[in-house]
């Protein structure tokens, strides 16, 4: 065990890479989640179809297959990605598809009466979305987003398979160097668990702030409805 802990610089570097990949992946995922999620609430069939195509395709793709494809297959037709770019892209696009479903579900879960009140006050369509619907939808998005963030963090372990020095990759090297298989994997499992717990705390804090902004205790049922629409991995 002590051999493993002696390798702490390597563990720390790996942890830092894992955290960075999580942050980049989440930032990337947020873009398609919002764009395609809002497209899914459009009145126009063609725009909604965009949402369906994106969501069905990337939800249907296995992250690791996508990652291999970007990393091994695409360079052969002239698109070369760095390992990190391939990793972040595949994680972000995949989680973004689930995120889009969360956004769509949450926006649709905001009562229609709110939209009508916004029409009655003569807000423009853009203002209705930005000032009335989205702020209320965010409260419904946060809990499922929290779950997705943890799924994303877990997903970063896959990058070790395309030679990125994340926590799992470094663990393999420590294992090879020390022969301490059980201890190495136990230690990094605990590190992953700790990261997940911290992410959860951060999301809960955000949830509380949004609930305060909306002046209410979390509305369990509405939140469940939204998370049902885009449940983790669902």
């Amino acid at each position, binding site marked *: 065990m002590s051999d493993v802990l002696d390798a702490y610089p390597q563990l720390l570097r790996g942890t830092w890479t894992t955290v960075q990949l999580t942050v980049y992946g989440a930032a990337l995922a947020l873009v398609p989640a919002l764009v395609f999620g809002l497209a899914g609430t459009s009145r126009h069939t063609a725009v909604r179809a965009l949402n369906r195509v994106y969501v*069905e*395709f990337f*939800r*249907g*793709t*296995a*992250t*690791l*297959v*996508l990652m*291999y*494809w970007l990393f*091994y*297959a*695409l360079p*052969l*037709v002239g698109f070369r990605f760095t390992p990190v770019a391939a990793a972040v892209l595949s994680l972000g696009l995949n989680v973004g598809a689930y995120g889009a479903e969360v956004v769509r579900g949450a926006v649709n879960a905001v009562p229609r009466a709110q939209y009508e009140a916004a029409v009655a006050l003569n807000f423009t369509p853009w203002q209705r979305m930005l000032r009335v619907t989205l702020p209320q939808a965010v409260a419904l998005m946060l809990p499922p987003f929290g779950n997705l963030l*943890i799924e994303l963090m*877990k*997903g*970063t*372990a*896959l990058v*070790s*398979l395309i030679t990125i020095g994340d926590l*799992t990759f470094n*663990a*393999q090297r420590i*294992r090879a160097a020390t022969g301490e*298989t*059980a201890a190495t*994997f*136990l230690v*990094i*499992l605990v590190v*992953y*668990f700790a990261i*997940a*717990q911290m992410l*959860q705390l951060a999301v809960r804090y955000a949830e509380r702030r949004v609930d305060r902004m909306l002046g209410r205790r979390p509305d369990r049922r509405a939140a469940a409805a939204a998370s049902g629409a885009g*449940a*983790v*991995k*669902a």
Partner: protein
Amino acid sequence: MTWDWNYTGEILPDLLDGLRVTVLATVLGYLIALVLGLVWTLLRRTPSRAVNQAVRWVVEFIRSTPLLVQLFFIFYVLPSWGLTLGALTAGVIGLGLHYSTYTCEVYRAGIADVPRGQWEACVALNLPRRRAWQDVILPQAVRRVVPSLGNYLIAMFKDSPLLLAISVSELLGAAYRAGAETLRYLEPITVVGVLFVIVSVLSSIVVRRLERRYATY
């Protein structure tokens, strides 16, 4: 480099072999997940607070750590504790264990979602506890649970490529090896990607049907 259909045809048998392993691993893993999830759920309902909390944290731990690392643990560590598993067996156990923490949550939510009034009606009718479970609560919970369980089957199918990391020759592993021989990765991995999308999209259509069927009372 352009797409080579002849080559695609040559590797196809290998890929289909891989697909067979993938499906086998998914189905077996899913059975474990369904049963083990139920075990977690029941353990969490025991009166013992200690058991309750212990199970809660174990489930939380498994759920918030990467499947890949868990697979490594099962495949590399258990043998040193005297339990040697074949790669496929280790993979199936890993998938089943990981996803049991999701099915456990589905069961719990399904039971919790049965309105309180249903319990109260059972008490008012003086139904014995067993009857209440069997005739009132479970039938309603099952309706709520089926679509989510279906979704996790799809999710698990999409996580099965991870087994290549412990040298199971499932679909993606077969494709990678085929590619490594000829240094042509384009065809095998693209075919695998397409297969995954087709299977996932078709099965999610089935799940949505189930959802609609079970959503209406």
